[in-house]
């Protein structure tokens, strides 16, 4: 496979003392001192001590059709890297080669003019991203439909609600015909149903054989979309590998999950295997709303557990927890496990809205979680006639859960 992004030893130096350099007087004074032979002025000294490497010796490559996650804490250099790759600023050292048209979504809605109508802004924004007018014209209907703003196409965008604004902005950007997309944390826009749509769109983009470099703090999104991930720490590329491995490392370093939390797993004590069963007992990954679903978790442990417990979480694709099944809260007992045990919990008549969900699992010893799997399984909920009205529930109107209501309507 062809390498579409090749980054070789890229470094970027920033001067923190830049504020002092912002007036002409300082700069002239500097020149004057240098000219008079004063070798190092106080300003220069402060400048040299106030520089830092936002990126240092970063090298990696991405192949065609790959979607690679770029993760790291704030100020780790993720955005700087994307800025360099999208040609906005120059590296201090090193070089990068990008093969194909590059589209960067560093922020959506840049270049929108409030006085112009939706239609005019689509053309303008498309052009800013480097699209030709004919290209935008061809995609106009698709963009408008994606943004769900048909009725407001010829209204100035200053009258748009903020939701409409971001939807339109994302829609234009998402329809960019670039072979390489650099995406910086822009997926998290709009309401939940729109976010799901964005995720879907990203998946489509990759299916078309295009390449994405994605920066996100939403681990669930990275985990779902990316096949590979890069970890940046203080400007250095510290880990490159499978998404799961990199995320684990990142979460550890980030202190979000303590060492203790991972102790069990780190020593290889506990392994799990999760299966989902349908009403008739077959292993499945999709059930329809309203049907029973059973979670079966097989636990292997090398060291006997005295007071074992299990938590199973249901999260949306962004990692947002919706519900939890937990032995600690739902049944009183704590179990002794010598080597192997099977936990089984059935959710009778699930009431999740149609869509994809992540299933997480954690094994407890007493009240301490000894291991955690952020993506133990995926559960797809298919639509069904849940309300017995002949109408299928629609995820973009109904949130996460389906609730039955007793209606009473009186004519007054």
């Amino acid at each position, binding site marked *: 496979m062809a390498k579409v992004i090749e980054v070789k030893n890229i470094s970027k130096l920033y001067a923190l003392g830049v504020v002092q350099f912002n007036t002409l007087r300082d700069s002239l004074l500097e020149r004057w001192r240098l000219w008079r032979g004063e070798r190092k002025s106080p300003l220069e000294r402060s400048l040299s001590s106030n520089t830092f490497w936002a990126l240092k010796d970063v090298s990696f490559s991405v192949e065609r059709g790959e979607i690679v996650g770029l993760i790291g804490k704030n100020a780790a250099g993720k955005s700087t890297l994307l800025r360099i790759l999208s040609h906005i600023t120059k*590296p201090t050292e090193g*070089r990068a080669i990008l093969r194909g048209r590059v589209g960067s979504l560093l922020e959506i809605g840049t270049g929108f003019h409030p006085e112009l109508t939706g239609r005019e802004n689509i053309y303008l924004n498309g052009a*800013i991203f480097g699209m030709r007018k004919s290209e935008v014209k061809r995609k106009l209907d698709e963009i408008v439909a994606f943004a769900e703003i048909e009725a407001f196409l010829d209204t100035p965008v200053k009258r748009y609600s903020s939701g409409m604004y971001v939807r339109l902005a994302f829609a234009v950007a998402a329809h960019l015909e670039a072979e390489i997309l650099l995406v910086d944390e822009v997926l998290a826009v709009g309401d939940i149903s729109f976010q799901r749509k964005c995720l879907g769109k990203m998946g489509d983009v990759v299916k078309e054989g295009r390449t994405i470099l994605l920066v996100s703090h939403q681990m669930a999104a990275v985990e779902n979309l990316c096949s590979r991930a890069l970890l940046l720490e203080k400007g250095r590329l510290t880990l490159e590998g499978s998404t799961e491995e990199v995320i684990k490392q990142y979460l550890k370093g980030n202190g979000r999950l303590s060492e203790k939390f991972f102790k069990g797993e780190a020593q290889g004590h506990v392994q799990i295997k999760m299966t989902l069963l349908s009403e008739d007992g077959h292993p499945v990954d999709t059930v329809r709303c309203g049907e029973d679903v059973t979670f079966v978790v097989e636990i292997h442990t090398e060291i006997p557990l005295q007071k074992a417990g299990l938590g199973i979480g249901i999260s949306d694709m962004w990692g947002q927890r919706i519900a939890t099944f937990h032995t600690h809260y739902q049944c009183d007992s704590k179990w002794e496990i010598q080597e192997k045990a099977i936990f089984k919990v059935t959710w009778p008549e699930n009431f999740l809205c149609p869509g994809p969900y992540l299933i997480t699992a954690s094994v407890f010893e007493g009240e301490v979680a000894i291991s955690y799997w952020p993506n133990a399984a995926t559960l797809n909920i298919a639509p069904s006639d849940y309300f017995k009205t002949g109408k299928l529930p629609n995820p973009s109107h109904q949130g996460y859960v389906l609730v039955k209501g007793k209606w009473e309507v009186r004519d007054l």
Partner: protein
Amino acid sequence: MVKRDVRSETIIDERRTWFFLDGKSLLGYRDLLFLMVRREWVAKYKQTLLGPFWFLLQPLLLTSVFSLVFGKIIRVPTQGIPMLSFYLCGLLPWAFFSQCLNSISNCLVDQAPLFAKVYFPRLIIPLSLVLSHLMTFLIQVIFFLGVSFSFSPRFLMLPFCVLHTALLGSGVGLLFSAMTAKYRDLKFLLGFLTQVWMYGTPIVYPLTLVPEKWRWISEINPLTAVIEEYRHFYFGTPFVIHPQMMALSILFTLFVFLTGLLMFNRVQETFVDFV
């Protein structure tokens, strides 16, 4: 369908450039240029009652004020030219020049949020500004010509005059934009400079009013030649300015424009790091 153009390879490295003008990529973004010009235009007069009529009304109002103050009260001679035409002829090119100068000199700083988020050839912005001011100017010129003059072969000089104005205005503008990106001080200086420049140029008075002994000072100002060109082109008044000074102005204009272009080109590559 995605066009798999493997030939479009981008190489990013640390080298900074002085003389590299990417004409090919500018051409690829020509749609953006037109849309930017349109944006400037449409946005300016949206939600106004008179809309594009302001293009004509604004200079008329300004000219009336100058005619009143300089013509009626101070009684500045106008070389026998009708007062309103005389002031219009000086003020219209001045407005074109100063708008180019001012908007371009602020363009890097003004558009910094956009530049920090997406790449396109930065030169599109100053280019779109010049074009949109140019359109305004041409509409004004053609309208006022149509109203007040009959055709004369001198009018063939118009493109030359316009080019001279545009290059000088945008050249100085580009220089300032490159410098203000780093040193904000110049922004304050510029406002003052424009004021002085206007009264230092024979715009609201004829060059003949300047005593012959001191005329060279006025003539060394490159804008004087520009205004003289317009006077000649409108009214057929003979050139008061020395031909050498005229040539000097043209050379200076070319020099400033090229320097401005190079400076702008160099600064735009990294300026997002220090705005």
